[in-house]
């Protein structure tokens, strides 16, 4: 164990352009998925946070449960959808980065929506009365509360990014782990493990953890700066 770890640390220094390209693809796919997930998840979560309607409890429970959607199941569903023999086969997306973005977007959207719902609902408890007295409609109130809680929502985005960039089940099934085209950090790690090259797999794992740390660090720096300027 320690021996592998030692070799892995040394290997990190020798990783080359190929690894950089793989890391960039991972970032591109997961960040795009999180961005698209936010486009749907933030409005959806915020709306659920400020409205009350019959059956809302069920919707919220389902949404919360979908935070734990198994990646490999999402991958399988997207595979069947995008396969040439499936309903969306004409798009020719299977085994492309596009397919991986679709799968990860489906994976993170419920997560973002569920977290935003909780954050906005809590804020609504504090400020809701005031906003209602201004006779603002649901969407308007949702918008104000999202803006008000924007710094907390960064955490929801980071959680979604963490989920996307670390999953292997969905990208492996819909991307096919094609060298130089759909190979991501996680599928590369899985491949090297299968080949029995454990130090290299571990080295790639260290790089992935480094990337996640860097993205989180960047986000909290931006958040802190923004809070100072506008908070």
């Amino acid at each position, binding site marked *: 164990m320690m021996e592998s770890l030692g070799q892995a640390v040394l290997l990190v220094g020798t990783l080359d352009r190929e690894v950089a390209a793989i890391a960039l693809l991972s970032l591109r796919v997961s960040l795009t998925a999180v961005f698209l997930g936010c486009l749907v998840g933030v409005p959806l979560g915020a709306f659920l946070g400020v409205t009350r309607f019959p059956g809302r409890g069920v919707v919220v429970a389902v949404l919360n449960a979908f935070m734990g959607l198994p990646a490999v199941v999402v991958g399988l569903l997207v595979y069947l959808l995008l396969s040439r023999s499936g309903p969306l086969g004409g798009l020719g997306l299977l085994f492309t980065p*596009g397919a991986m973005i679709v799968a990860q977007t489906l994976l993170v959207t419920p997560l973002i929506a569920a977290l935003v719902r909780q954050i906005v609902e809590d804020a609504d408890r504090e400020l809701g009365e005031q906003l209602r007295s201004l006779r603002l409609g649901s969407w308007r109130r949702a918008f104000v509360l999202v803006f008000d809680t924007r710094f907390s929502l960064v955490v929801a985005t980071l959680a979604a990014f963490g989920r996307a960039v670390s999953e292997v089940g969905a990208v492996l099934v819909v991307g*096919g782990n094609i060298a130089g085209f759909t190979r991501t950090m996680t599928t590369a790690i899985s491949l090297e493990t299968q080949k*029995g090259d454990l130090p290299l797999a571990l080295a790639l794992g260290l790089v992935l953890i480094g990337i996640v740390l860097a993205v989180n660090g960047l986000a909290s720096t931006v958040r802190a700066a923004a809070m100072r300027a506008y908070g």
Partner: protein
Amino acid sequence: MDRIRRSLIALALLFLGTAAVPAQEQRSITVASTTSTEQSGLFGHLLPRFTQKTGIQVKVVALGTGQALDVGRRGDADVVFVHDRAAEEKFVGEGFGVKRLEVMYNDFVLVGPKDDPAKAAGKDVLEGLRRIAAAKAPFVSRGDRSGTHAAELRYWKDAGIDIAAARGEWYREIGQGMGPALNTASAQNAYVLADRGTWLSFKNRGDLAILVEGDRRLFNQYGVMLVNPAKHPHVKAQEGQAFIDWLVSPEGQAAIADYKIGGEQLFFPNAAPAGRA
């Protein structure tokens, strides 16, 4: 406020821009192949040569033979390159493949712990398997409908052992690729049937060694097929056929023979001259 909005818009455009990137003009095909050809590094050796010559990029999805043929059946690949003759002939017979061409062979090896508790070592794979079954020594099976799995089941049958009935705690079906099977065998000091290519390139051997090799029955033929454009009109028939033609051409065959790990040749080209038309 304005600055935040502007930077948010810029960020959004950046993401959308990166999402729209893969507008490549380069011609490419998708090949469904086996873990043995990919994980042994053969494709890493062959594909750059082919791409340099033709400008066609080859994207390899590495799966077990059964799965790779299924991907071809669904029309999700242009070419299938696998190693299970019976399954390949069925694929072509059903009209999913145009024609099966033989490309190369290597061989299977029976791998097991160096001290060989079941005394399986020798020149006869069937005798080796009989001894493993008799000793109920741990044996790792791929269990994934791959070409190697199909071969393993064939050997049990030929050895006169009904593995479905004889199996017990000692027979461990893992449902994964060759690498994971070797990893499992290495961790549990178990016997396992492997293709020589993956074994040679495998790095986590532990106490494992080759115990049976050179039995004529261990011959492992690889075949290549174009997915039938009549079934799946989007198949890139021209580019796919160019890849197949190159594989069986003298140049492609020489490139296969060239591939070595530690001085040892992994695959032996044997395309029929008739196939080179």
